[in-house]
């Protein structure tokens, strides 16, 4: 990598004569690290993906940051909003150019990848009070920050999928709302009679399929995330997926699971009585309130199988970069973001807190949170590995092949497992 810089520097020296006036002043991130709490100074840059004009960004900019600055007047917090779809690419490019900010609100799936690149600060080592925070958060959310025995971040906000349905539809169809997978399968014909698919989902990746695998008692990898064979293709995992494939083949699941755009979205299908149940997250409530104000959205736990009712954890973590020149202040801001005040402020605008303590208070903020809090108690993260992006794609392709009948579920999961093994081997 070194020859890049010398070559570029030589060219730069020649060209800079001609590019006068185009130079910029770099971000004044001073490197003073105040010793204690009120001696903190400098700038902390924080990248996030809250959209413009959203209540989240308003809360961040008008409530949280000013409150923090009040406590630490010497610190300036610069929040940089980045469109969500492009944040990952911007992070990777910045990592390559060593231009990362101090803090990033990263999707949980990116943390092991960034940690593996070596650009994240190992918080469990360098943050003295790390364990205090670790103990306060939901275990599933903390696990998303673990890579090779070290924690590289803390959870910031979380979410999970629960089962969503229209109560009045079930009443009309004369069917009890299913709480187990068996009941769902049994109810499918009656629901079809009433004009709806029993269950609909728009993908076949980890986010979609893992609740079914886990609830059936299966798993994707071993606990240390070193291999998938023996786990992904275990009898329990196969059973979990087979249930869905059978539903699809019998005509009780729509083909949007095969992917591709343009099909009837899960939310629209639910609202119009075409889908009886879907799995989705807390953001659906504001969306339904806006799009379908007359519709009452009901929720319950993910249908239980032999392994219980286990859903998948989503959300974002807050990570600090190794290259940060103002780590003390950044760490302090991180602590503030995990304080009850900040977490509650965000909870009011739809960002579920990660602090377990706040669980009971959440239903006061939004009644619908209760179901998610319950599900979060057992919810698990997707395999925490830099290979996840690729594994997810493989899983999706293989399972879709099973749906299309090109291979059996066992064959599909065998193939996915062996490919996943090869990928995981790179990191172990």
């Amino acid at each position, binding site marked *: 990598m070194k020859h890049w810089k010398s070559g570029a520097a030589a060219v730069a020296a020649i060209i800079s004569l001609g590019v006068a006036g*185009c130079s*910029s002043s770099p971000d004044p991130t001073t490197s003073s690290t105040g010793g204690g709490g009120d001696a903190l100074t400098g700038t902390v840059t924080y990248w996030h993906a809250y959209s413009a*004009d959203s209540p989240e960004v308003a809360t961040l900019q008008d409530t949280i940051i000013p409150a923090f600055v009040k406590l630490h007047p010497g610190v300036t917090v610069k929040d940089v909003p980045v469109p969500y779809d492009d944040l990952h690419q911007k992070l990777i490019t910045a990592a390559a150019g060593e231009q990362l900010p101090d803090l990033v609100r990263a999707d949980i799936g990116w943390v092991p990848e960034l940690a593996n690149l070596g650009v994240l600060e190992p918080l469990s080592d360098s943050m003295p009070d790390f364990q205090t925070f670790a103990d306060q958060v939901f275990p599933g959310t903390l696990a998303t920050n673990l890579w090779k025995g070290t924690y590289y971040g803390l959870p910031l906000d979380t979410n999970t999928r629960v089962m969503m349905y229209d109560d009045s539809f079930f009443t009309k169809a004369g069917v009890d709302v299913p709480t187990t997978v068996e009941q769902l399968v049994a109810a499918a014909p009656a629901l079809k009679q009433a004009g709806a698919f029993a269950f609909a989902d728009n993908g076949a990746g980890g986010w979609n399929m893992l609740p079914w695998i886990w609830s059936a008692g299966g798993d994707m990898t071993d606990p240390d995330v070193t291999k998938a064979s023996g786990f992904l293709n275990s009898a329990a995992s196969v059973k979990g997926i087979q249930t869905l494939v059978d539903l699809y083949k019998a005509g009780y699941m729509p083909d949007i699971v095969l992917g591709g755009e343009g099909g009837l979205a899960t939310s629209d299908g639910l609202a119009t009585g075409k889908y009886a149940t879907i799995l989705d997250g807390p953001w659906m409530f504001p969306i339904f309130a806006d*799009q379908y104000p007359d519709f009452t959205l009901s929720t319950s736990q993910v249908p239980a199988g032999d392994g219980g009712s286990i859903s998948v954890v989503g959300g974002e973590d807050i990570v600090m970069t190794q290259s940060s020149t103002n780590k003390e202040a950044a760490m302090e801001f991180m602590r503030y973001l995990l304080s009850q005040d900040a977490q509650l402020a965000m909870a009011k605008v739809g960002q579920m807190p990660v602090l377990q303590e706040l669980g009971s208070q959440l239903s006061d903020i939004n009644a619908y949170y209760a179901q998610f809090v319950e599900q979060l108690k057992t919810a698990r993260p997707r395999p925490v590995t830099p290979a996840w992006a690729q594994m997810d794609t493989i899983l999706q392709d293989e399972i879709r092949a099973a749906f299309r009948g090109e291979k059996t579920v066992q064959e599909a999961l065998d193939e996915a497992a062996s490919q996943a093994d090869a990928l995981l081997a790179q990191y172990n």
Partner: protein
Amino acid sequence: MNTNNSRGLTLLVRYVLLAVAAFVMVYPFLYMVSTSFKTRSLSLGDPTSLWPSEPTLENYKQVLGTENFARYFLNSAAVAIVSTILIVLLSAMMAYAFARLDWPGKRVFFTLIIIGLTIPTMMLIVPQFLLARDLHLLNSLPGLVPFYVGTALAFNTFLLAGFFEQIPHELDEAMAIDGAGPWRRFWKLAMPLSKPAIGTCVIFAFLGTWDEFAWALTVLNDVDNRTLPIAIALFQGQHSTSWGLVFAASLIAVIPVLIVYIVFQRNFVAGLTTGALKN
């Protein structure tokens, strides 16, 4: 008589064809306009109902009231104007040299330009980022200009070279005999005669830089420095997007581009070259 009728008929046929074609082309745009006047636009409504039942200016008010929106607009304008001028100037000069002059190495240089046409810019983003970092052009609004100009040169040079080719050589000879050097011939002959081509170049260059998103997003962090496409992209949420808002913002962003287009397409008027030939 007959000729009048047939001329009237051809005119009518032309208009009908154009009107139908225009409707098909413009329909999605009309749909955009229609949605921008609706609230409750998290999912797109019926495409056949173009007229919103309760039209509202709410989206526009919200967009225009968004913090820094005017700032982004002006940033984009500044970068686009400066870049366009440089692109047109440098491309025209290179195109002229390729199309009208004979010199050793011409083929080599031109081949290198063609290669630039085939290179997808997305692939270059990381090395370009490293280059920008080494040149200290990161996070800087003026720093966008060299990159925008550099990436647009191949296309515009190729385009203009094709047009400069069409200028009759006799005119060049005539001026050369009068003692005019290449620079004079460039300014007094090639440029004025190529007004349609230059106009095209201006339109494309402006549109390209005004709309550019990926690079601007990658290098700009400071909110003050950001450009309009970034602002529009930020209206899209992670889980849901209010499309009326995005459409309203996009429509506002389209206005300068349309103005540039309307102004410069005036050059597409026949008869500019006739006078020169007679001379």
